[in-house]
């Protein structure tokens, strides 16, 4: 028998009290694990959604002329009459250091032309990339192919176009393959065509006016990627769409702060449960501690018995709390997730943090009761028997 055995035997004998301390700590740890796990899962989901949200880097030709905006985003300037970007150079984007983070590269050529006798802005896009970059685009009809055009909602209204109708653009008869549903952006006013067709109409073969890049993913080094793109395309200027990046970061940080705050609060309550219960336990065991002291236990050894009990319970609470928190997180995830699915990943670092939290809270909350126990006057303690 040693001091650890005494602690274990006491816990075994006083199961109800041990269970109470365990429950207090376990609740704190489980809450922390559930919230952190949910935080990670939701962060992943938010990232995933933001990846779908669209471009977060815009590449425009270098220009010292007027500033324009696109889609309500305040970006670097470009001018339609300024230099264009060579389409062949865009391959360089796929070769940058962080090319693995590049989800889509969407070139767009823009130019003024006439449709049905009215001036319009014609946009040529790569529809394969546009599906990733602009997932909110919904076409009533089909994507335009060669000889076809897809007007934005406002352009269709002003030009009187519907799916299947024909329209004369720059002197060519084109068919309306579909109409873009209203987006609330500048896209509503454009006429969209396949990139190559638009380049031909506008006389800009092999040239693009701007490039949208989707590079949103967890911990993407956006600023570094911007710099890498700048180096890859010397004639162009890449700009991060800060509102998207910052919005994403703020949403994630906000949830994490909330999760951390609630976790700390519940952990504190758990520690208070340990403190109160251990204080009660020490008071209840005054006589027993008197015996320990009378038969030659040093005050530090009495302290060790109490702390060992707390540490055993804390370790159990940490491990069980991780399991319980993981389970609670799994059950709660559908309530928080917009997708209503997903799952929490087993995270060894979170398990380690849960164990550490339980041990720190349990031992910190037991320090004072243990100190009280070690300071008991043995003669006085024995009188309580």
């Amino acid at each position, binding site marked *: 028998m040693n001091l650890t055995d005494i602690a274990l035997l006491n816990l075994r004998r006083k199961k109800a009290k041990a269970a109470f301390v365990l429950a207090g700590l376990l609740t704190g740890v489980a809450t922390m694990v559930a919230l952190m796990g949910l935080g990670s899962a939701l962060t992943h989901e938010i990232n995933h959604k933001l990846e779908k949200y669209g471009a977060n880097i815009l590449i425009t030709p270098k220009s010292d002329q007027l500033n324009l905006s696109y889609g309500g985003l305040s970006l670097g300037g470009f001018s339609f009459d300024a230099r264009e970007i060579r389409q062949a150079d865009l391959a360089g984007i796929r070769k940058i250091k962080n090319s693995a983070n590049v989800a889509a590269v969407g070139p767009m050529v823009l130019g003024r032309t006439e449709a049905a006798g009215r001036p319009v802005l014609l946009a040529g896009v790569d529809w394969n990339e546009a599906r990733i970059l602009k997932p909110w685009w919904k076409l009533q009809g089909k994507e335009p192919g060669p000889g076809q055009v897809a007007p934005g909602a406002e352009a269709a209204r002003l030009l009187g176009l519907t799916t299947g109708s024909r329209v004369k653009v720059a002197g060519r008869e084109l068919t309306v393959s579909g109409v873009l549903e209203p987006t609330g952006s500048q896209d509503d006013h454009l006429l969209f065509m396949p990139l190559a067709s638009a380049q031909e109409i506008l006389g800009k073969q092999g040239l693009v006016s701007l490039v949208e890049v989707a590079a949103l993913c967890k911990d993407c080094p956006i600023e570094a990627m911007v710099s890498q793109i700048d180096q890859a395309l010397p004639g162009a200027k890449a700009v991060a769409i800060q509102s998207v990046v910052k919005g994403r970061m703020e949403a994630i940080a906000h949830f994490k702060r909330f999760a951390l705050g609630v976790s700390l609060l519940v952990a504190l309550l758990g520690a208070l449960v340990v403190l109160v219960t251990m204080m009660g336990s020490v008071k209840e065991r005054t006589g027993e501690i008197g015996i320990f002291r*009378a038969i030659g236990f040093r005050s530090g050894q009495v302290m060790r018995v109490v702390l060992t009990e707390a540490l055993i319970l804390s370790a159990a609470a940490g491990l069980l709390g991780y399991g319980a928190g993981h389970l609670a997180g799994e059950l709660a995830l559908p309530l928080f997730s917009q997708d209503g699915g997903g799952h929490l990943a087993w995270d060894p670092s979170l398990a380690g943090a849960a164990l550490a939290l339980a041990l720190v809270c349990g031992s910190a909350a037991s320090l004072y009761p243990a100190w009280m126990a070690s300071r008991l006057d043995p003669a006085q303690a024995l009188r309580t028997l």
Partner: protein
Amino acid sequence: MSMIIARDLVKTYGKGSSLVRALDSVSLEIDAGQFTAVMGPSGSGKSTLLAVLGALNTPEGGSYLVDGIEVFSLGQDQRADFRREYLGFVFQSFNLVPYLSLAENVMLPLAIKRLPKKEKLDMAHVALARVGLEGKEKRLPSEVSGGEQERAAVARALVNQPPILLADEPTGNLDQANTQRMMELLKRLGSEGMTIVMVTHSPACASYADRVLNMADGRLQGEETGKALAAVCG
């Protein structure tokens, strides 16, 4: 040779008009292997004397030597070590830890010693056998009689093989048969060379001792031999 030498021990409780002198210049010497009983009515200071001799209580004045060690010059941890090495305690209310078996209770003083578990268990079994409790090692205190609990408490006091046994009313909660058995056990331990100091208010119990010290109002009032007391008590 004196194992215990106490000089002018003074211990008071309370203050002002409620001041009680529990020990009032108490001096005594007890030889190694001597069985000494301290007798007196309730409140005479005999339990306080035992607590002081057990280094559980510190007097305001006086000196106390055990085997040449000045006990009250020791720090708290050293005093705990002293209690472990020199003293065995037997209390009136048995003072066994309720959630430990008899063997585990007896092993308590060994818990802080670096000995193999098997050796500790063997020592506990020997101590229990010495007080006639073989076969009851795994029982909890609540599963044995009061007499057996008290004998287990004696076994716990013996397991470390200390030279001194301090017993505070060890038969206070026992019936006549168990009282007699306990006193014979203490007498036997005394005859085996253990120094025993027993506090009792029972002349019959004190008669087992080699020497009986009478206490009243915190002072030692005289002494007699156990034999003489036995003759008086019949």
